[in-house]
C-alpha cells in the first residue's frame, strides 16, 4: 500500500508541476489543484497508513494518528480558498488584457527617451 500511495503522490506532484510550468493561466490553476491534492495526501501519509482505525473514540484498542488529518483538513480548506482566489484572478486578468498568458503586461518604457545625458 505504502508504495501505491507514495507513487500516487509522486505522480500527482509531477503532473501538477508540469502543468504549473505552462504559459497559460488555466493549466497553471489546474496544476496547482493537482499539486495541492498531492501535498495533502503527502501530509496525510506522514501520519502513516492505517486501515479501518478512524480516530473516532469508540473503545477500539488502536486509532490512526488524528493530528495529520486535522492538519490536512486545514490545508484542504486553505488551498480551497487559494484556488478560488487564483481562478478569479486568472479570469480577471484575462478580462483585463484579453489574453490568458501568465506573464506581466509591461508599461513599455523602453520606447521613452534615455535618462540624463
Amino acid at each position, binding site marked *: *500500500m*505504502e*508504495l*501505491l*500511495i*507514495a*507513487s*500516487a503522490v*509522486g505522480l*500527482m*506532484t*509531477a*503532473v501538477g*508541476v508540469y502543468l504549473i*510550468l*505552462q*504559459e*497559460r493561466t*488555466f*493549466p497553471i490553476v*489546474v496544476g496547482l489543484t493537482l499539486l495541492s*491534492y*498531492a501535498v495533502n495526501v*503527502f501530509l496525510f*501519509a*506522514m*501520519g*502513516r*497508513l492505517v*486501515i479501518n*482505525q478512524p*480516530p*473516532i*473514540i*469508540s473503545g477500539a484498542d488502536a486509532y490512526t494518528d*488524528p*493530528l495529520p*488529518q*486535522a492538519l*490536512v*483538513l*486545514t490545508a*484542504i*480548506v486553505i488551498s*480551497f*480558498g*487559494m484556488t478560488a482566489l487564483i481562478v*478569479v*484572478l*486568472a*479570469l*480577471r486578468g*484575462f*478580462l*483585463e488584457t*484579453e489574453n*490568458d498568458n*501568465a506573464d506581466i503586461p*509591461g508599461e513599455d518604457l523602453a520606447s521613452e527617451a534615455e535618462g*540624463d545625458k
Partner: protein
Amino acid sequence: MLLTVVTLTPFLGAVIPLLAIRYGRNFCALATGAVTLTALVLLLSQAPGVYRGDVMTWSVPWLPMIGLSFSFFLDGLGLFFAALILGMGLLIILYARYYLSSDDPLGLFYFYLLLFQGAMVGIVLSDNILLLLVFWELTSLTSFLLIGYWSALPKSRQGARMALIVTGAGGLALIAGMLMLGHIAGSYEITEILQRGDVIRSSPLLLPTLLLILGGAFTKSAQFPFHFWLPHAMAAPTPVSAYLHSATMVKAGLFLMARLWPVFAPTEAWFLIVAPVGLITMLIGAWIALFKDDLKALLAFSTVSHLGLITMLFGLGTPLAAVAAVFHIINHATFKAALFMSAGIIDHEAGTRDIRRLGGLLTLMPITATLSIVAAASMAGIPLFNGFLSKEMMLEEAAHTVYAGVEWLFPVLVTIAALISAAYSFRFAISTFFAPPRDDYPHQPHDPPFGMWLPVAILVVPVLAIGILPAVTAGPIVEFTALAVVGEALPDYTLAIWHGLAPALFMSLIALSGGALLFAAYRYANALRLAFPRPDAKRIYDAVLSAVVNGARAIIETTHNGSLPRYAGIILSAIVAVGAVGFLNAPHEAGTRTIIPMSFPAGGAWIVLAAICITLLFWHRDRLLALILTSGVGLIVSLMFLQFSAPDLALTQISVDVVTTILLLLALNLLPKTAPTKTAMVGRLGRGGLAAVIGLGVGALAYAVMTRDFQTISDYHLAEAKPGGGGTNVVNVILVDFRGFDTFGEIIVLGIAAITIFALIDNAMRGAAARTLNSIRHSVQSKDAHPLILVVATRILLPLALTVAAFIFLRGHNEPGGGFIAGLIVAIALIMQYLASGYAWAAQRARIDSQAMIGAGIAIAGLAGLASLFFGWPFLTSTYTHVDLPLIGDIEIASAIAFDLGVFLTVVGVVMLSLAQISRVEERAEREPVLRGPMDVQLRQGRIVGSNGGGA
C-alpha cells in the same frame, strides 16, 4: 566639548540662512558669516593652548559595539586646517553674496555651504576614524549639492554626479581601509593609532590597508588617475570652485595623508606609491593646464598639479618634505583662491572666461588685474611671492630624492613640472591683462563692487607678506603644523628667500626662464600636444557609466522577463538542488515498519488515478476535459482518505471538490476553451524532466517516512479528546479545540479569499474588463436554460440536503462532520438551486447577505474564543456540559460548537459570495436575454404559459 561645538556650529547654523534670506541677501550673508565667524573665534580661542603644545580631546560613545564614538581632538594640524576652512569660508561667503545673481536662491547656497563647512571641520577635528568617515562622506554629499547648485545646466548635473561617484567610490575604499586600520591598531581613535605605528607597519594587512586609504585620499585630492573629476566640478559657481576645489575639500585627502603620515611615511610602500603618483599628477595637471583656454579650467588643472606637488612632498616621507608640504598648502590656498575669485570677477565683468577672447583688462579693471597678477606671480613661483618659497623647498627636497635607484628622475621631472606651471601662469596673466584690449565685450568691463574684490585683496596680502617675510608671518604656523604632522622634533630649517646657491635655486631659474620660453613658443607646444593622442577622461567615464547601466539593464531585462514558467522553473530547480544536497549529505536508513499488503480495489483505484494523471499530461490543452479528469483525481483521493481511516478528510475533500469544479467551470466559460500548442519539444522535455524529478523526490520522501515508525504527540489528543475536549471525533476536537487557533486562521483565509474575489470582480464592471465582457460572443448551444425536470428535482433535494447539513453539523464533534462540511453542504444545496433555476431567480429568494455572513462567522468564532477570557481562561478554552432535558434526555453541549458555528457561517458566506460574484460577470457577458423564471416551461393549473424572453 568645545570642539564638538565648533564642529556642530556650521551644521546647526545651516538653517539660519534658510530663514534669514527672508530679510534680504545682505542680512542672509551677514547671518551666515556670523555662524562661520563664531566657529572660527571659538576655534582660535584654543590656539594658544595648542601652540603651548597640549592636545585637547573630547569624546562621547556613539555605537560602542563597533567602536564608533563622537570623539574630537585638536592639535596643530587640526587647528591649521580648521582655521583654513573657516577663514576661507568667511571670504567665500562674502564673495558669493556679490557673485550670485539675485535670482539664485542664496539662502539655499549658504545652507549647503555651511553643511559642507561643518563636514570639513568634522574631518579635520575627528579623533575617531569612523566618525571621520561620517564627515568624509558628508563632504562628498554636500559637494554634490553645491556643484549641482545650478541644476538647470547639464554640465553642473554631470559634474556633480561625477564628483559624487568618484569621491564616493574613494570613500568606500576608505571605509574598508579605515576599518582594517582600526582592527590592526586595535582602536579607532587616531590618537591611539598614531601610538601604534609599529604594530601597523608590521601587520601583514599593511599594504591592502594603505592602498584602500590612499584610494580615498587620492580620489578626494584628484590625484592621477582620479584627477578627471575636478575640472568638471568647475561647472559649479565660482565661489564653490574657489572654496571646495582649491582651498578645502580637495585638501581633505592631503589632510588624511598628513594625519596618518607618522604611521605610514616610514614604510617603503608609502614612498614608492605616493611620491610618484604625486609627481605624475603634478606633471599631467600642469601640462593640461597650459593648454586650457577657459580660465577656470586652467586654474582647475593647475590645482590638480599643485595637489600633486603636495602629495609628492608627503610621499617623500622626510620631515622637511612634510614641512614644505604644509607650507605649500598655505601658499597655494591663498594664491589659488585669489585667482579663482578673480576669474569669477572677470567672467562676471567681461562675460567670458575664454583667454582667447580676453585681453587688455589691466587698463579696464586695474584693481582686479593687479591682485590677479600678484597671485599669478606667486603661482608661477617668482621670488618675493609666497609660491616661490614653498616651491623652492619642494625643489630642494626633490633634488636629492633617489627613486628606484635613479638619481635624476625626480629632480628633472619636478623641474619640468615647475617650468610648465610657470608657463601657464604667464599665459594666464599676460594674455588676460596685457594682451591688446578687445572691443567685443558684451559691456564695458570695470572693477567690481568693493565687496567682491575685497576677499581677493585679503588673500593677496599674505601672498606678499609671506613672500617677503616668511619666517615672521608663516613661520610659527608652519612649524606647529608640521610638528603635528611629523609627530616628533623637526630638523633645522629656515623659511627664507635666500638659501644660497643651492641646487633648488638653479632648478628654479631653469623653471622660470624655461617657462617664459615655453609661453613664447606656445603655438609650437600646442602643435606638439595636438600631435599626440589625448584621452578624454570625461568620455571614458561616460562610456564606462553608460556601459554599466546598459549592462545592468541587459542583465535584468533578460532575466526578469516576466515569464512565470521560467521563474517557477528556476525556483523549483533550486528546491530540487537544495533538497537533494540536504538529503545526500546525511545518513539514511530504510524504514522497518511493516508494510500493509496491497488490495485489489486499491490497485484499481491506483490504476484509475495513474491513467487520469497521464492523460492529463497530454490532453491538458482541452480545458474542459482537463477539468473532468481533475474531478476524477479528486474522487480517487477522497476514496483513498476513506480507505485509510480518514472519513472527515473524505467528506471535506468531496464537498470542496464540487465547489471548486463549479468555480472552474464558471471561469472557463469566459476563458479560452483550449490553448495553442506553442511550447517547443525541448521546452516540454525540460519541464517534463523537472516535473519527473520533483515527483520522484516527493514520492520517495513519502515512502521513506511511511515505512518507518515514530513517536507522536497525538496520543495525548486521542486520550484527551473525550475527557478534555468533550468529543469522540478526535479530528474535530483537534480542529475546534486543541488546535482551534489554526481553524480560526483557516476561516479567516477563506474570508479574505472571498472579499478579495469580491473586490476583484467589483471593478471588473468598468474599463478594459467590461469591454472584454461585451466583446465575448457566446455560442450558446441550447436554448433551454432551466430544464423543468431539473428544477423540480432540485426543489425536492433542497430541504433534504439542509436536513443532512444540520445533521452533519450537530454530530460533528462526535462523528465525522462538523461546521465546515455542513457549511459546504448547505452551499451545495443552494448551488443546486442556482444551477437549476438560475442565479438571478435564486438569489432573489436567498435573503442571505454573504458578506455579513462572513463577518459574522469570523466575529462569532472570535468571540466564542474570547468568552473563555471572562472565566479567566486563555483564548479558545472550551468547556462542555451535560444537560438533561425532559423527553429529549441527556445531551452534551460543548462550547466549541459556537466556534464551529462561526466556521459554518463563514464557509456558507464565502462560497455564496464567490459564486455570486462570478455570476455577476457572467451576467454581464450574456448576449441574449436570459429567462429569469425558475423554469422556462411554466405550467399552471392545466394551462401552459410560454415565457421566453421574460427578462427580470
